């Protein structure tokens, strides 16, 4: 199916929903083809080739909204899905703010696709994954093995159409690889994650990915519990990204308007340190979540969330913008493919870089803890109150230098206080696939509760 054919299917679904009794309708169709490679012990464990396509239809009957999705893109299949969307709308309650977006000019966005996704054979992709494993094993004799190297790429086409006259389509590609390296520790194993992400395999550096996993695993050998205390903490970019994602999630207008965000009612307040600058940017060509328009066809844009220490904005989709009373969507309606109806979420979060090198950041911390991994974010963070306590591992910082490895401890606090406690941002930022899609440098937090022995 070609691009325009996907748009035709979306248009047909809108017509079918109107015919089934909807007053307004929108259809989001996607098609992607992708592959996955898993490698272990110098051999390819599995090769996956996948194609999938589907459509999601939103139907409005007055202020009632219903959603249906499916994989059957034949004419009768699409009509059945559209009919189910209208039926679903009849079950929902009236909500005066529910309405489809009006069309706005969509500016094309270059650089979302990489020809290497199509050009590389599956054998080339498998060789890349094998190279990651070899690089990890060669990096350090203490690397005892690699649990798995995982490589995936995909090329996606998206089309959207609505009864308000909205129509758009785009293509993008993405690619990532990661490994879990195993180091022989004292009486046990240590694990280390290495990863890379790009628009296509040509953008990945398999040697660097393997070396990162090896470095992280071997660095943990001999780790002990730290003493419980409050002290300066440096979050490496993978950990900073997780926290940026939690903060970005709490800045979504849906949570704010419904009183389920620690930031509700605090717009304009000076609650962050000047060292922390946070933007949402749905158009950064390097951002994995970038697209010309969001999950309901509204142009993506850049929004300053935290700047100059102040909370500058929340993130909106069309519904939450309407609810704000004449507000404007920030283009943050997000979908996880055709199966999910759009809801407010971050696109790419960009944490502003500072001027300190990583070594200078540790120097500024003096005596404290460097956190290189966190666990239990889905259970240890309350998104309504912002209170968190999560499992962590990393290193002691002594005299401004990284020292012995640490494990089995927690870092705890609350998200609002965390914003105020950021003392410095590092100079070197990277893209991290945790917390959504985040580009962040390491961050120095003035004080955090560390609980260990």
């Amino acid at each position, binding site marked *: 199916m070609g691009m325009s054919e996907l748009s035709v299917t979306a248009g047909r679904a809108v017509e079918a929903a109107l015919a089934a009794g909807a007053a307004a309708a929108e259809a989001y169709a996607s098609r992607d083809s992708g592959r996955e490679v898993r490698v272990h012990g110098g051999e390819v464990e599995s090769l996956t080739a996948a194609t999938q396509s589907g459509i999601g239809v939103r139907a409005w009957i007055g202020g009632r*909204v219903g959603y249906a999705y499916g994989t059957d893109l034949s004419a009768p299949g699409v009509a059945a899905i559209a009919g189910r969307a209208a039926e679903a709308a009849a079950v929902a309650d009236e909500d005066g703010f529910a309405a489809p977006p009006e069309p706005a000019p969509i500016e094309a966005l270059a650089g979302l696709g990489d020809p290497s996704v199509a050009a590389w054979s599956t054998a080339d992709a498998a060789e890349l994954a094998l190279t990651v494993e070899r690089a990890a094993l060669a990096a350090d004799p203490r690397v005892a093995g690699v649990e798995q190297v995982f490589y995936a790429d995909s090329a996606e086409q998206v089309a959207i159409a609505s009864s308000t006259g909205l129509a758009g389509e785009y293509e993008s590609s993405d690619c990532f690889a990661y490994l879990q390296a195993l180091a022989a520790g004292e009486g046990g194993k240590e694990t280390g994650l290495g990863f890379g992400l790009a628009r296509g395999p040509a953008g990945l550096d398999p040697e660097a990915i393997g070396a990162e996993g090896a470095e992280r695993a071997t660095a943990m050998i001999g780790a002990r519990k730290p003493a419980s205390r409050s002290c300066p903490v440096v979050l490496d970019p993978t950990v900073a990204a997780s926290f940026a994602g939690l903060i970005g999630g709490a800045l979504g207008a849906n949570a704010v308007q*419904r009183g389920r965000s620690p930031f509700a009612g605090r717009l304009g307040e000076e609650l962050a340190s000047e060292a922390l600058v946070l933007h949402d940017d749905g158009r950064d060509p390097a951002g994995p979540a970038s697209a010309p328009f969001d999950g309901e066809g509204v142009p993506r844009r850049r929004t300053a969330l935290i700047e100059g220490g102040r909370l500058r904005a929340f993130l909106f989709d069309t519904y939450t913008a309407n609810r704000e009373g004449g507000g404007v969507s920030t283009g943050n309606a997000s979908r996880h493919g055709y199966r999910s109806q759009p809801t407010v979420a971050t696109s790419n979060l960009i944490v502003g870089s500072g001027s300190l090198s990583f070594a200078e950041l540790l120097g500024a911390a003096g005596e404290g803890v460097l956190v290189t991994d966190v666990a239990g974010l889905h259970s240890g963070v309350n998104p309504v109150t912002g209170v968190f306590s999560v499992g962590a591992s990393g290193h002691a910082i002594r005299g401004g230098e990284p020292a012995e490895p640490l494990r089995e401890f*927690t870092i705890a606090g609350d998200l609002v206080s965390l914003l105020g406690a950021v003392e410095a941002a590092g100079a070197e930022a990277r893209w991290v696939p945790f917390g959504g899609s985040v580009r962040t440098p390491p961050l120095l937090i003035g004080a955090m509760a560390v609980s260990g022995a």
Partner: protein
Amino acid sequence: MSDLLEPGVAERVLARALANGGRFAEVFAERRRGLAMAIDESRIESVQSGAEEGAGVRVVDGSTTYFAHVDGLDPADLERAADEAAAALRGERREPRPLRAAAPAPLAIEVRPENVPAERKAVLLRELDERARAQGGEIAQFTSSYAEARREVAIANSEGLLSGDDRTRTRIGAQAVARRGDAVETGAETLGAHRGFELLEDDPGQIAELAARKALTLLDAGPAPSGSMPVVVGGGFGGVLFHEMTGHGLEADHIQKGASVYVGKLGEQVAQPLLNAYDDGRLPHEWGSDAIDDEGAPTQKTQVIEDGRLTAYLYDRLTAERDGVASTGNGRRESFRHLPIPRMTNTYIAPGDAAPEAMIAELEQGFYAVSFAGGQVDPATGDFVFGVSEGYLIEGGKVTRPCRGATLVGNCLEALMAIDAVGDDFFMKTGICGKGGQKAPVGTGQGHVRVRTMTVGGTEL
């Protein structure tokens, strides 16, 4: 057997899958249907209906699995998947064995959810909303969700297996937010089963009251303590403790890659003799139960710990083959778009003989984790973490004040050995487990369990 996979079509697809060689081929066909809705701000919203169908074909050659999946169940779709899976192989054609149809009985569903009008489900959510808000004016927000899902699956393989299953799961969840001045707290509760709408005939509204009461109780909470101390874990979802601490480390893929602290521990004493634990995919109605696993193997009850000794690992087909044993019926996949991997079903610590009150009364100082929001483990290092959703201080043998924001951390082998009391108040709860990017419904269960020492991570230093 459903109409998903005609035997003649299955044989043709398997033959095409082995056209370029391979020692094993399998086709997995699936039809998924679901309905979900929610109530928020006392309004029914997010009404969503889904229908997907497709198939995955895998060919195993040496130690490599070639897998392809497609949308659609027309013979042409299945053949396309077979051709794609076989495309990278270069060997001689192999012939699959003739199929012998097995007809395992699916778990019985009394009231098919799809036959219950959607309006009835909306009424149910309105009842939950009223019940929660009736708990007091401090309930500031209440949301509740309803979800039904049916998965019809058919599996055929080159060794002659042709089998299928028809699974229906129903689940409701309730989340309350309580507010008093600047204090905000949340409470959550769920009810789910491998059952139809009959699950909701017996006072489902009590989960709304429970969620609301949890949130109200926490309004009086203080900060959680920090440091090592004895911990008593509540029954039911407290079983996620065993799921994370031990269950994942027993999945044979982790074992075979040397990425589990339980490697080489079979037959060894890993817990006190008072501990017995099982994985059981056949428990009637339970959330993690199915008639067969996603490779067509009958589900079974596997004792993994007997009187404190480690007695079994959990296998899917390929890991069992590698160890020269039979699959334990733990080969599960999220959908036709995923490869099967060893997964838990319903995992639980069998009831012991301790009275929960006595376990607590014996402690001068400790922490009482009534329930968890979830947990996570790195099976290779054994490091785990659990987020406590409802926790209290234990002082002088008594449960005293509630605590907010506590997390438990520790290491599997130490913590498992440190379980020194198992309660007689057993029950099961539902969970959604994530592994390798795949979600699976799992049951967790236990009575109260006491761990002699664990690290509690709070903010009170």
